[in-house]
């Protein structure tokens, strides 16, 4: 059964039609045309679909779109403000924290959630909070370097 809902993404309202079973990931990608969140595993294990719900990272492939109504959804597309990159985005570029880039939107959002509540994390704390975002290309070394560098610039 189809229902009309409104999702607030990066501060903007999106009026869409979903079914009860529609995943938040599909609503964001297919109907809101925000394709930064990716589908890597479909079982909530890889973190490529990570978006922030009221500032907290969630696996959007394991979240129903209807459950996200009334919440503030942040996707990677909402990080840069007025053309200025978030320090995390800048640091990931500068420190080589990405290669193929498929994990990058989710990884940056998880890192943002960390820095928003813990502005100067240790390397271990960075690793702990990114443990839900798999990366197959980098071995995580330069991702950790980038997050620490971004934290030192805020």
């Amino acid at each position, binding site marked *: 059964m189809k229902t009309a809902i409104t999702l607030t993404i990066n501060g903007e309202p999106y009026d869409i039609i979903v079914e009860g079973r529609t995943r938040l990931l599909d609503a964001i990608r297919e109907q809101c045309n925000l394709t930064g969140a990716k*589908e890597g595993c*479909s079982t909530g*294990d*890889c973190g490529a679909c990570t978006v922030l719900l009221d500032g907290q990272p969630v696996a959007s492939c394991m979240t129903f779109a209807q459950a996200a109504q009334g919440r503030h959804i942040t996707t*990677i597309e909402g990080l840069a403000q007025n053309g200025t*990159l978030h320090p995390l985005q800048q640091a990931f570029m500068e420190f080589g924290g*990405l290669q193929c880039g498929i994990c990058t939107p989710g990884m940056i959002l998880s890192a943002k959630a960390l820095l928003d509540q813990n502005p100067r994390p240790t390397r271990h704390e960075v*690793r702990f909070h990114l443990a839900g975002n798999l990366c197959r*290309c*980098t071995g995580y070394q330069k991702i950790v370097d980038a997050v620490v560098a971004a934290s030192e610039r805020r």
Partner: protein
Amino acid sequence: MATTVVGQSVARVDALDKVTGRAQYTGDMKVPGMLHAAFLRSPHAHARIKSIDTSQAEALPGVKAVLIQAKLAGKVAKVVDAAHGTSMDFQAFADKKVIYQGEKVGAVAAITRAIAEEAVRLIVVEYEVLPALIDARAALQSDTLIHANLTPVDGPDGRPLHNVLNATHRVDGDVEAGFAQSDHIFEDTYSVPRVHQSYIEPHVAIAEVSPGGKVTCWTSTQGIFSVRSNLTNTLDIPAHQINVIGMTIGGGFGAKWGGVVEPYAVLLAQATGRPVKVAYNREDEMLDGRPAPGAVLTIKTGVRRDGKILARRAIAYWDVGVRGAGSGATVRVRGVYNIPNIEVHAYDVATNKPPTGAYRAPGAPQASFASEAQLNKIAGALGIDPIEFRLMNMREGPEVDFKATLRAASAKVDWPNRTKGPDEGWGIAIGEWTNGNAPGSAVCALQDDGSVKVHSGLMDITGTDTAMAQIAAEVTGQTLDKVTIVRGDTDSVPVAPGSGGSIVTFSMGNAVKRAAENVRQRILAVASDMLEVRPDDLEIINGQVSVKGAAGRAVTLAEVATQAAKTTGGPITGNGSFAQQPSATSIAAQIVQVKVDRVTGKIWLRRSVQSLDCGKAINPMAIEGQMEGGATQGLSWGLWEEMAYAGDGRNLNPGFLDYHLPTALDMPDLESVLIEVPTGNGPFGAKGVGEPPIAPGIAAVQAAIADAVGIQLHEAPFTPERLRAALRAAGS
């Protein structure tokens, strides 16, 4: 020759798009009218198909096509997989028999993925289940054949071996004479599991067929020309009627080559007259990707008491599933050592498991594990330091310096003075690789504003677009920010090799360098007329062509471009081609420190140091990225990853919940050391670097565990369960 742009750790040219979510991966694309596909897959590892009834599926609203093999009769219906070294053709869909769980029996295209999946469930198939051969050793002894045309081959002991797809035999010297001269003989067997490359973006392709039959295919691939060849060979469509567009790729590591999903996208597009997206999910990947084969290797080595290796014999069985190849890599047991007598007998064994393919340095991690683990054991038995043992046996030669690479890793950890606490240990291993070379061409064009464009079919998986930009900037003298790499499709650019085999920085780097040199020569010729000096008196720095020693006399590249259009030579466009020039071997050395928890068997990674000879570091940060990623994959193969199968052939861990990939928390800081021993044929001396780093990790961590608790594990992955069992057996 000092360089200004080449050698800099500049950010990837595609980084901005990736950190903002703007990068377009194939799954992000929408083509108007696009349909979605789902596959009907065999639930059984081995069964006869007695009947298939698609009528209910076809009747489901929203379904536009249901394909099974019978419906392809009269059309070409085979899928060629020559890219992975297997010459066996196979049908698009199984029709009489299925030989692995997950094998495609049919496909549906529908207006949504959900409807397609529902339609798949409505296809009724009657199977007669047959016994499955899952274990390679069982397959070797069994009269049941995976493929009807396989004949037995002679095994190393003369007894016949069944279900052997291919064999590799190599004899250099006389190993029996070498063993006779040896003071000590060692014989050990090691096993490595089948693992999945686990790129985070599953296989995906979109195909559209025009009314005239022209195919357009957007895809996640390492090689657009390999996809075009595959579609030509598979579906008998002429190459000039196919355009393959390579989108941003979310990882490949060898698996995305030559058409795993593209033929099905085209078949469904042909059947429906609409664009069709075929997107694997993770379960599709685990059931029907092209993972790396597992192997069991038995190595017998004879050494002199002073540590000189005299002879080595390796017998190996590679479990390649229903199709694949791995036995050829067994020859890597020679490594970079001077071993006068070597004998290899290796067999690719068919089992009722998915076919296998290439994974980063195909076969090298498996063979290097067995080889290096035994060498570490031998060094320990002889009381020789494992680094000294390797140094004394290493070969030397032009354009290689294995000893310097190994010494660099040793120095980084101060190996002679290394310390360890209780249940801590250090291990060292090396892996060798020689980057390939393949034909390719590039075009370099000076724009009217002085900026430079480079056009090629290169697919960027490791940061090679950035390296190409650096090369073009270095040679043309334009600043990096004004150099754009334009990736073309198979219609618009000359042939380029696929990105794999550590081939492309070496091969396309040369093509781009030659195209840029073409452009540079023309720039200097035009500028020399403008400035009335000889070309030799000019230099190009930061987009300005100036007279050496007279900086005030200069013209910009924009001015040169404008002037060129006024000459009979016309606009400044250069091309460069490369083929058939070999590179030189490099090794990756890895030193790992672990701490073992004897109670739980858990192995903690404390430190990993890797060194690599890259010839010339075009972008050191990018090369470190390759080393760090490869080292992590090697360690993961040693500690965590394994595709597990039940006795009846079902995959037990077809997803990331139970297929264990390392997280940021599992990995220590990774320290990388670059060595530069230039190769004469590489652009600026560069060697390919993508693959060597994965080779040594399994053996390095195995050696560290042995050093920590005195247990030599022979079966990867080195799980806590296996270590606990070994500790119990040893009385701990």
